[in-house]
């Protein structure tokens, strides 16, 4: 098992500190290596909160996030950062590319967090970009790309360190249908090839339906939709 989410709860207090808002009320599920999963649910149901917890961007109020048998709550900030860098890849709805770097450089940014960029890394980035059809756009800046192209760059950037878990928050939310379909196909293809587990938060049924599993979140609880 790659990921084990155990009775995870997340609460926020209201500004006055008098009331507690319970976003997640005890969520449990497991993810195996290479598995693809969609998390669906209405707006405000806690999908992104759950994704942040899974990706160690946030910490649960109660419960545990166990990755490859290791409870992430026991890790320090630096250890969590290394975990995110080595084991998790993120794709955001807004791609959050660095506007001052070229496409190729944006892809290599995660490498730089812990190592120097080598020709091997560059070669790997080029291949991945070639794979997503951006071989001619490698030296372009994000400002010179379309939304779909930016999202493909973000996708490649998430894969550059060969993560075991890929997390995507509405990855096609800002794209037109054709572009979104193309990107979805690409996601799944790479998922299969690299045996990377994938959790996608989405409203898009077309995307959710193509995942192996679907979890629906409602009232702070989660259940297997498919």
């Amino acid at each position, binding site marked *: 098992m790659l990921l084990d989410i155990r009775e995870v709860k997340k609460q926020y207090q209201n500004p*006055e500190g008098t009331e507690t808002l319970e976003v997640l009320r005890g969520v449990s599920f497991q993810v195996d290596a290479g598995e693809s999963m969609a998390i669906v649910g209405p707006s405000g149901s806690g999908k992104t909160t759950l994704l942040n917890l899974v990706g160690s961007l946030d910490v649960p109020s109660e419960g545990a996030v166990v990755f490859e048998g290791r409870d992430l709550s026991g890790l320090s900030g630096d250890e969590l950062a290394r975990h995110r860098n080595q084991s998790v890849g993120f794709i955001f709805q807004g791609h959050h590319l660095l506007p001052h770097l070229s496409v190729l450089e944006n892809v290599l940014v995660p490498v730089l967090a812990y190592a120097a960029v080598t020709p091997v890394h560059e070669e790997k980035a080029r291949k991945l970009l070639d794979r997503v059809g951006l071989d001619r756009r490698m030296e372009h800046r994000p400002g010179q790309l379309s939304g779909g192209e930016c999202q493909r760059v973000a996708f490649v950037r998430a894969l550059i360190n060969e993560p075991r878990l890929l997390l995507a928050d509405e990855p096609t939310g800002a794209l037109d249908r054709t572009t979104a379909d193309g990107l979805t196909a690409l996601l799944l293809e790479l998922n299969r090839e690299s045996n990377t587990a994938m959790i996608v938060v989405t409203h898009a049924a077309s995307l959710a339906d193509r995942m192996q599993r679907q979890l629906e979140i409602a009232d702070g609880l989660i259940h297997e939709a498919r």
Partner: protein
Amino acid sequence: MKRGDLSRRGLRYYWRSHLGVMFGVTVTTAVIVGAMLVGDSLRFSLKELAQQRLMGVERAMLSPDRFFRADLAADLAREDAGTHYVPVLYLNASASTSDGSGRVNKVQVFGVPDSFWRYAGIPSSGGSPFNADDKQLVINDVLAQRLETTSGESLVVRVANPALLPRDAPFSSEEDVTLAIRADVVDVVGPERLGRFSLQASQVAQPTVFVPLHYLQEHIELEGKANMILSGSSTGLPLHVAGVEGRTVGDQEGLIARTWRLEDSGMEIIEVPEQQAWELRTDRVFIDPVVEEASRATGLEERRFITYFGNAFTVGTNVAPFSMISGVKDLKVDPPFIPADLAEDEVLINDWAASDLEAKAGDELTVEYFIIGSKRTLEERSATFKIKGVIPMQGLARDPLLMPNLPGISDREDCSDWEPGMPLNLSKVRDKDEKYWDAHRGTPKAFIRLSKGQALWENRFGRLTAIRYSSEGLTREALEEALLTHIDPATYGLSWMALREEGLRAGAEGIDLGQYFGGMSFFIIVAALALGFMLFLFGIEQRRREVAALFAMGYRATVIKRLLFCEALPVLIAGGVLGVLLGLLYTQALLWGLSSAWTGAIGDILVRFHATPGTIVIGLLTGILLGMLVLAWTLRCFGRQTIRELFVAGGAVTVPGRHRGWLPVLGFMGLLGGLGMGFGSLGKDAETVTMSFYGGGGLFLMGGLCLSAVWLARKAGQGGTHALTVADMGVRNLGRRRGRGLVVIGTLAAGIYMVISVGAFRQFTGAHTERPSSGTGGFAFIGESAQAVYLDMNANKNRKELWLDDPQFDDVKFIQMRLREGDDASCLNLNKAQRPRLLGMNPADMVGRFSFVKVDGDVEDPWSLLDTPLENPDVIPAIGDYNSIMYALKSGIGKTIPYRDEQGNVFQIKLVAGAKNSILQGNLYINEKHFIKHFPSASGYRYFLVDAPAVNRTEVAEALRKSLQDIGPEIIPAETRLNELNAVMNTYISVFQALGGLGVLLGSLGLGVIVLRNVFERRREFGVLRAVGYPLNLLRRMILSEHLALFLVGLLIGGLASLLTVFPALILPDIGLPWGWLVALVLGISISGLFWVGLASRLALKSAFLDVLRND
């Protein structure tokens, strides 16, 4: 790609957002570099002035109250060929034009030979400003300017007549204390020809007269004498610059020891052939105790004498006027002159006296004599002896040389010609007295034991008038050699003062304008850095999603901060470099200020721009380092945001309506505490009230800021049923960015508080200068004379003699002080005072005068401390002005300062009390009895504090100047002097307020930046408002109401806190307030704030909000 590339590429892309950082560091570096260079420039200018003052002179050997052979200089030159030695007569004087139209009272007179001018590089032959070695004057340009005279015109220079016998000594003449030289000015010398020559390390040029040495020696009847020898280079340049390896002070002291003679100590050895003896005597009448000790140390047989002038000898009804009496002691002399069985109260008289008085053994002889007390008060005393026997006038009993050299007596042919320094009724002189004088001169008529004579007539100048040695087997040279072996030349002032070294040190350690300007520009630095880094923070807040993405990719917070730090670092360095360039301009601006509006801070000195690479580098590095520290702190604050917060639109989440519960409590405590602290002090002394209100204002400010934080939080939480208006919408927005709002309020309030409240420390002479506790001590005038007054100026009997018997002086009282020249330790001297002037006075005269900041001990009146012996008898207490002690001397109460006394011995002066803001500035005040002990030869009084009725003071001052014109008095109203001193501090406060005001204006510019930023962040909101039909002017009103509220709250808190601080100025009589300036400052700040808010609102509303909305 490397990690560094991330920063480099970021910089290239986001360089505009780093311009704020550049601005902050540029201004900071400019201010620091500017301040430091002002300090450098002043030090450089003082160094130049010191060089100009001394030119080739390196050291001086000054014996202000004694005279030695002028040839000693030549003797030294023979031993030390590389150094140029010149003898000088240095006197105080006053100078006036021949028609009396111009007069300068404090003038230094140097009697110099032609070789003196070689210190200016002028050759002795042909280049000397003197055209002959006779009656003529060379004056410096300072005196020429003040007297409005020039070459060819005639001047009257009145110098102190420096008699060999101190004027305070018994038998000293009261006549001719001053001498006038009326001569033509043959040249006016400027700085390039030693026209600035002075012994004092001060930037103020002294009015100076140069007179040919020979002429001056003759004129004051001190032929062949000098009281100063200069040493140095004859090239006009310092020795080391001239390539001469100068001797050390120690070497030169050794030279003195080898070359000086007994004559240089004022002693002489005369032969007494009848007695086959050598006699050691002095023109000063009394032999110095050190010589007495040296004589004893020689181990020679000697006979000691103290011979005194008796006003009358009386036996029964018979009286013999004006007779000498000797106390004698034989050491190892066999047979002794004084029989061993002569009792202390017994006397031997000669047969002439026995006959004259019809006296015989067993009769009682009463001797009347004068004793000189303080201020030359004469007291006639008497002593009665039993006549032990009558001795024939032979041998020692008929030795006229036993009478010392009494000026006005021993050099006169007849008794009727005597001009003694005491009031003798010469009509009492009988014919037989004249005959005795003709036959025996001053041969003593009576002899007593030396110990008895010393008990009666010993004084501060000595206790012997002669020592005799048997000349059998002892040559004069051997005796002199034996004596000199045991006398340290330094005892006679024959020690070297390192003029150049001390002058340069005084300049280097003097007032550090760099530090002052650095401190005074503090608020500019704070405002610039706050503004610059606020802009930087805005820049990186715009990139928060990028930062969040980096977090998500596994970048640690420290790495991200380091990347951002490295990105900003080159900008920061570039800002520093730009700051250096701006700093050079800023220096010029400050120097211009110092030479115009702020001239009160440094006087008339022209400070020349001078920049050293070291200072620039230090300034640059300091500016960059400060920038780096603030940058690191800014990133630390930014890094506190969680990843989730970074992803949330709008950046950091402010929890609406929440504040820490204790904040309002703290706020009200601050307000009430501040008011309580200030008003609670009412009724106490002015110092306590001022400080309490200052502290209270600070507390009030803190309280106000706490409450404004609460107010901002409440604004954020407002809503519900509250009636919403457009203005209210704006004001309510304040709560969304409470940190920013608080920064604006805090910067404005703190700036206003600092700038205005510092004004509370302005020194005002006030309207109550007649009060003894005021800074004038209640005195009307301060007087300083070129020549000393020896008499008690308050005694009616002396007033006629001193021309003070005019009825308008009836209520005028003088406190006379003895003066030992030294450095001016007031804030008017930019150099560090090495040895401040010492004034000796009677502490009882000063009781109740002045107020004191700090006193070392618990006493009712600090002046009594000058009368209190200290544990260490070698340490004497002194009082000074507190500012002088702290800033000019860089010392403190309880600390000691080493001084060298007249005998060359080092003694310590302990500072026991510091007066508050007073005319005592510049000098240290010690007990007269201590002064006399350490400077016995310093006769008379040259410094006066004058009490006078409050009416007609101008007329009284003018009358005093006229009456005392012979002694060259400088009479300054005490209030004027205090104003001059206050002007220095007030100028510094003005500088602080001007620079602080600039900082506040910069702070108000920050307000405009925040307006722009806030509107930019909320452009989508404004887009929506525009979409639903809000007109632009409505939006403008909303923005204005929001930000003006911040501005007004800052202004209100700062204004109220300042008002509390300056409250004492409204109620205390001695303090004033520059209302005009304060109103102008507040108006300036208000106008600036309104301008920036208005401009920013206008610019912000030019954004196409609807486009933003459409793009979303």
